[in-house]
C-alpha cells in the first residue's frame, strides 16, 4: 500500500501514434524489445551503442513506481560507463563499499567489498530504481536509432522461422509489426513467456518482508549496508538499513510468516516499528511501504529461435545480494555483441547458444546464492535457528566463523571458469584472472589524462599488449597487430606500457600508461604478454608472446566467426 512519495516526480512519457497506426501497414524491424524496465532500457542503449536501430515498447508510460531495486554493482556501473550513461547515476547515487552485521545488540563484524584501490567504480552505488530508469531513458529520447513507444502493450505473438509478428494494443487500438529478433525484457510476469507457453520453474519463499522507505536527515548512520539478525526492535527476525539518494533510507524488515499483510502495512504500525528501530528522537517521514514474498525461478532456456529472454522475464531471485537487475544488465552485456555479429552475418548462430549457456550458468549461481542467503536469514526449524545462533555468537570473537554468516552474497560480475568461448591457457600466469573472467581494472593515463583500463576497452574485440615502452614494439609485432586490426571482425590492440610517456598513440594504437603498476600486476604481465578481450570486455585468451595465428584462432572461437 503506497504512502505519498514526496521526493520523486513521475514524468508521464507521451504516447505517440506509431508509424503502423498512422499508415495501417505492418512495420518490419531488426530488433524489438518488450519492456522498458531497467533491463530492456539497458538493452536499447546497448543496441544504439552498436549502431542497431531498436523499437522499445512498454505498456506503461512512467518509470518504475515505488521502492524496488536500489543497489547497483560495480559490473553494472562498468557496463553503464561503456554505454555513456554512468555519470548522472554516480552523481546522484550513494557510494558504498562497507557492510556491517549485527546480532541482537552488538556488532558482529564488518566487511569491505572493494578492499583494493585503483578501480573506476565502487563496489556499489545505491540509487532508487526510478532514477536509474530515468537516466537510461534520457539518452534514448532524442536518439534517431531508438523508437520508444509508451502505452504500447504486447497482446499476441506469431512465431515464424525468421521473424516474429507482434500484436500491440495502444490507447488508439491495435497494430502489428514484425521483428527479426525479439528481446523479452517484460519482467517476472512476462507476456512473451506466457504467450510462448514456456516454463518458469522454481519456488516462492514463505517469509514476508516489509519494505519501507523513510526520509530522514541523519548523520549518525553512515553510507554503509547495516544488517541485523534478531535485533531488539524486531526480535527473532532480521532487518536491513540502506541509504539512497535524496536522504531516503530503505528499511527492510522480516515479518513472521503468518503476519497479516494489510495490518503489517498499516502506516501507523509501520511508523511504530521504525520508531522502535531508530529511537524516539529521530525524526523521519514515511515515503513508501510494500510487502513482499520473494520468488526464486528461472526459465529452462533464455534463447528460443528468434526470441531472447533477459532480466526478470528469464530469472527472478530474492533481493538478498542485489542480484536481480544487476544480473539482467549482465544478460544484456553478454547478448548484444553476439546478436550484432550474427545479424551482420559474421558469426554462426551457434554464438547465440553461448548466450544461453553463459547466462543460465550465471542464473544458477545467482539462484544458489540468493536461496542460501534467504535460508540463512529466515531459518525455519528450531535446529536451524540454533545453528545460526551458534555461528553468530562465535563470529563476534573468531574470524573463522565470519565467512559462514550470510546476510546476502553481494552481486558481482559472473566468472565463467569453463566458458565455451575461452581458449585455455598454454602459458603460466600467476594472477587471479583467467580466460572467462571479467577484466580487472587499473588506473592508467592516456596522453597524460587520467583514466581507467575498463574505460578504454569494450564494444569490440580488443587486445592488450604489455610493453615497457611503446618503442619496444618490434616490426614483426607491429605487422601482426596491423593485420589483426584489418580483419573483417577487427581486433584493435592497446599498448599497456610500464614507463610514463606523453604519447596518446603509437603506430595508430592507443597507449595506456600503467601509472601505479597495477595493470601489470593484476594481469601478471611480462614484456610481450598479450590478452584478447571479447566485446563485453571478458578475457577469452592470453599468451606470454604475441602469435597472430593463435590470436586469430582464439577470436574465431570466441566469436564463432564464419568470415
Amino acid at each position, binding site marked *: 500500500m503506497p504512502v505519498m512519495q514526496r521526493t520523486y516526480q513521475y514524468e508521464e512519457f507521451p504516447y505517440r501514434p506509431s508509424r503502423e497506426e498512422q499508415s495501417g501497414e505492418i512495420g518490419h524491424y531488426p530488433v524489438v524489445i518488450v519492456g522498458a524496465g531497467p533491463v530492456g532500457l539497458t538493452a536499447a542503449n546497448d543496441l544504439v551503442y552498436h549502431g542497431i536501430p531498436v523499437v522499445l515498447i512498454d505498456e506503461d508510460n512512467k518509470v518504475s513506481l515505488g521502492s524496488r531495486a536500489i543497489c547497483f554493482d560495480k559490473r553494472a556501473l562498468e557496463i553503464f560507463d561503456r554505454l555513456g550513461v554512468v555519470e548522472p547515476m554516480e552523481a546522484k547515487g550513494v557510494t558504498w563499499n562497507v557492510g556491517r552485521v549485527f546480532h541482537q545488540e552488538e556488532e558482529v563484524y564488518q566487511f569491505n567489498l572493494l578492499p583494493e584501490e585503483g578501480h573506476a567504480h565502487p563496489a556499489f552505488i545505491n540509487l532508487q530504481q526510478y532514477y536509474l530508469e530515468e537516466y537510461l531513458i534520457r539518452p534514448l529520447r532524442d536518439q534517431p536509432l531508438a523508437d520508444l513507444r509508451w502505452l504500447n502493450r504486447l497482446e499476441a505473438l506469431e512465431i515464424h522461422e525468421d521473424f516474429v509478428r507482434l500484436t500491440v494494443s495502444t490507447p488508439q487500438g491495435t497494430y502489428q509489426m514484425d521483428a527479426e529478433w525479439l528481446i523479452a525484457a517484460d519482467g517476472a510476469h512476462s507476456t512473451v513467456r506466457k504467450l510462448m507457453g514456456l516454463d518458469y520453474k522454481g519456488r516462492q519463499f514463505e517469509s514476508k518482508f516489509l519494505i519501507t522507505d523513510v526520509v530522514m536527515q541523519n548523520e549518525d548512520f553512515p553510507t554503509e549496508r547495516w544488517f541485523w539478525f534478531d535485533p531488539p526492535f524486531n526480535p527473532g527476525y532480521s532487518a536491513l538499513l540502506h541509504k539512497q539518494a535524496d536522504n531516503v533510507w530503505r528499511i527492510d524488515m522480516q515479518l513472521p510468516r503468518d503476519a497479516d499483510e494489510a495490518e503489517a502495512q498499516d502506516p501507523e504500525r509501520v511508523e511504530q516499528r521504525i520508531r522502535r528501530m531508530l529511537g524516539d528522537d529521530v525524526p523521519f517521514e514515511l515515503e513508501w511501504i510494500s510487502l513482499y514474498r520473494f520468488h526464486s525461478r528461472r526459465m529452462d532456456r533464455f534463447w528460443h529461435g528468434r526470441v531472447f529472454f533477459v532480466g526478470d522475464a528469464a530469472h527472478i531471485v530474492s533481493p538478498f545480494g542485489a542480484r536481480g537487475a544487476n544480473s539482467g544488465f549482465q544478460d544484456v552485456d553478454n547478448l548484444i555483441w553476439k546478436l550484432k555479429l550474427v545479424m551482420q552475418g559474421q558469426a554462426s548462430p551457434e554464438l547465440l547458444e553461448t548466450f544461453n549457456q553463459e547466462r543460465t550458468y550465471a542464473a544458477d549461481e545467482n539462484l544458489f546464492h540468493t536461496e542460501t542467503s534467504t535460508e540463512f536469514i529466515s531459518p525455519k526449524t528450531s*535446529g536451524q535457528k*540454533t545453528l545460526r*545462533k*551458534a555461528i553468530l*555468537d*562465535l563470529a563476534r570473537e573468531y574470524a*573463522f*566463523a565470519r565467512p*559462514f554468516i550470510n546476510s546476502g552474497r553481494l552481486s558481482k560480475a559472473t566468472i565463467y571458469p569453463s566458458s565455451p568461448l575461452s581458449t585455455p591457457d598454454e602459458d603460466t600466469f600467476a594472477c587471479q584472472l583467467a580466460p572467462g573472467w571479467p577484466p580487472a581494472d587499473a588506473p592508467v593515463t592516456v596522453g597524460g589524462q587520467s583514466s581507467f583500463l575498463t574505460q578504454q576497452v569494450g564494444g569490440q574485440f580488443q587486445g592488450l599488449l604489455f610493453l615497457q615502452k611503446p618503442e619496444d614494439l618490434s616490426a614483426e609485432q607491429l605487422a601482426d597487430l596491423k593485420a589483426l586490426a584489418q580483419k573483417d571482425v577487427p581486433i584493435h590492440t592497446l599498448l599497456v606500457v610500464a614507463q610514463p610517456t606523453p604519447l596518446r598513440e603509437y603506430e595508430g594504437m592507443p597507449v595506456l600508461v600503467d601509472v601505479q603498476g597495477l595493470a601489470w600486476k593484476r594481469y601478471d604481465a611480462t614484456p610481450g604478454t598479450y590478452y584478447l578481450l571479447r566485446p563485453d570486455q571478458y578475457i577469452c585468451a592470453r599468451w606470454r608472446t604475441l602469435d597472430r595465428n593463435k590470436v586469430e584462432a582464439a577470436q574465431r572461437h570466441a566469436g564463432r566467426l564464419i568470415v
Partner: protein
Amino acid sequence: MAKLHLEPRIQNPDPLYKALAYLHTDLSAEESLVVNAKLLFLLINHIGDEAVVYEAIDLVRKDMDSSRVE
C-alpha cells in the same frame, strides 16, 4: 573415498566424554543445542577438509532416515 575415520582413535574416551557431559550440566535444552553447535563449528573449522564434513553429514542423515523407518 572414505576419509572419515570410523575406527577408534581417542586414547582416553572416558574423561573426554565426562568433560562433554559436564558442559551440559547446568544448561537448558536450548542452551545445550547452542553449545553443541558451537563445538561443531569449532571442530569443523579445525578439520578444515570439507569432504570429510560432507561425509559425516551424509552418514548422519542416512542414520536418521533408517532410525525413522524402524
